[in-house]
């Protein structure tokens, strides 16, 4: 088992190293993309300050809490983009038939089609997100237990985002359609930049129980400030486990129904 983990880690690192080599081939693109991402982050941060210059709180959430939520959103979102960038490139693999050659390699295909193309441009952004998040959390009077649950629920959020990406891959196997599916996921995820309570009750319900963006992002922050019951923590674990299992099941179905390109 340990040997297998070690081997998979080695393959993952090799894929990542090659991805880094590819990324650094064009220095101009590297500079421009990084600049665009920093600009996007600064603008959204500015928007939060603008909102709070007009009001003291949003439905009980203070400025600092919203900033932590926003940074948590960015951390989870960016982390998933760093790790799962290859999902965005899945369609060409299916259409060209090159996926066939991945399916017969002696490793789990997720090593290649899910996490085989670490995005180092986004990885650069993870560092300031992490330190900003730490900075704002340390400024608050947070209990160790709350911080512990926060960390666990962030990991839980990452499991949910993993499940969403596997759903997209499975959909790609069945229909060759990936771009729209991933865009729908991203659009819905963007609703998680703010606490789900700010939305209409029905939307808030959907974002918690049906498409659990709230569980991914709002729940960890709520637990940090002791707003989350233990029952809801258990519910978050259940949702993550359920979605991950379902996504893997769909992947298996996708493989069985996969028709490959060109006979």
């Amino acid at each position, binding site marked *: 088992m340990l040997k297998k983990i070690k*081997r998979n880690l*080695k*393959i993952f690192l*090799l*894929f990542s190293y*090659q991805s880094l*080599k*590819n990324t650094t*081939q064009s220095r101009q693109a590297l500079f421009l993309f990084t600049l665009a991402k920093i600009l996007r982050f600064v603008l959204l941060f500015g928007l939060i300050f603008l909102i709070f210059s007009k009001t003291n709180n949003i439905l009980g959430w203070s400025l600092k809490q919203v900033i932590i939520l926003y940074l948590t959103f960015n951390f989870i979102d960016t982390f998933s983009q760093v790790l799962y960038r290859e999902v965005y490139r899945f369609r060409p693999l299916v259409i*060209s*038939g*090159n996926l*066939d*050659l*991945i*399916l*017969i*390699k*002696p*490793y789990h295909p997720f090593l290649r089609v899910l996490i085989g193309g670490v995005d180092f441009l986004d990885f650069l952004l993870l560092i300031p997100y992490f330190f900003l998040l730490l900075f704002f959390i340390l400024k608050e009077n947070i209990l160790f237990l709350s911080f512990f649950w926060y960390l666990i629920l962030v990991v839980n959020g990452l499991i949910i985002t993993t499940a969403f990406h596997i759903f997209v891959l499975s959909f790609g196997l069945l229909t060759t359609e990936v771009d729209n599916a991933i865009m729908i996921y991203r659009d819905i995820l963007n609703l998680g930049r703010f606490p789900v309570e700010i939305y209409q009750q029905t939307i808030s319900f959907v974002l918690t129980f049906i498409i659990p963006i709230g569980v991914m992002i709002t729940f960890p922050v709520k637990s940090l400030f002791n707003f989350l019951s233990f029952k809801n923590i258990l519910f978050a674990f259940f949702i993550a486990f359920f979605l991950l299992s379902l996504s893997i099941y769909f992947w298996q179905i996708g*493989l*069985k*129904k*996969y*028709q*490959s390109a*060109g*006979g």
Partner: protein
Amino acid sequence: MINVKNLTKIYKIYRKTGNLINDIFFRKYEDVLALDKVSFTIDDNELVGFIGPNGAGKTTTLKILSGILYPTSGKVSVLGFSPFEKREAFLKQISFVMGQRNQLIWDLPAIDTFLLNKAIYEINDLKFKKNLQKLTTILSAEKLIQKPVKMLSLGERMKMEFIAALLHQPKIVFLDEPTIGLDIFSQEAIRNFIKSYQKEFQATIILTSHYLEDVKRLAKRLIIINKGKILYDGSLVSIFQKFSQVKYVSLILEKEIKKEALLKIGQLINYQFPKAVFRIQKKFLPKVIGYINNKIDYLDLVIEDEKIEEVIKNLLSDHK
């Protein structure tokens, strides 16, 4: 080594009606039978050629044998494994080279893909070095492995694909149209390589190709498939005995003879003095040769088999 029994594969294909509303809301699918109860066995160290027209089921067979596709029904056992289960121990013993697909990393030199495969297949340093050297030598590709893949010609890229696929010394190699799109020199190089590789590594090779020359030059055994059914499974030699009804007789004449006189011998295919070529039904051959010996003055006589392309073409058209 490979056991296939009653293998059937049905593809579900979406049929467009041309009516946008119907195509979106009342989509119709049809079943396309790609393989129809196909059975065969392949032993160790065999090189088998799969022949058939487009859509015959050749590539589908190979994809099922390698575990890419899930069979609709039937039994498939390769090296004692059920391919679709994709067991690591199974996948480490096979390889697939497809003429129109690539596993090489486009922007980087081929050596990067080789090193990746070294880790994936857990090839030790010594074996990696030895196999890389052997393969690059057979393919005369020592200098190509450091060049970025995008800078290589199609023929050079194919050589790199072969090295990437064979570094781990697979027991079974599936080759799907490996020479497609290559110029005659590259085709020749690849053919020679396949032959040398099988000899050197004792691998079982299953080859599909549109170029009959590939199969003629490499395979001793031929499986002809059409519309998902096997029409012939046997040696290259016995396909003539079984399905070829004619022989070609070429004569080099001593003196010019009128065409009408030659037509009495049999079906005259070509006549340009001094050479005349006849197409003769096999059953009449002894009689015809006797007649030629008695009536015609010739310098040379050659009897040839029908071209394999023609035998296969006739076989396929009989089963249209």
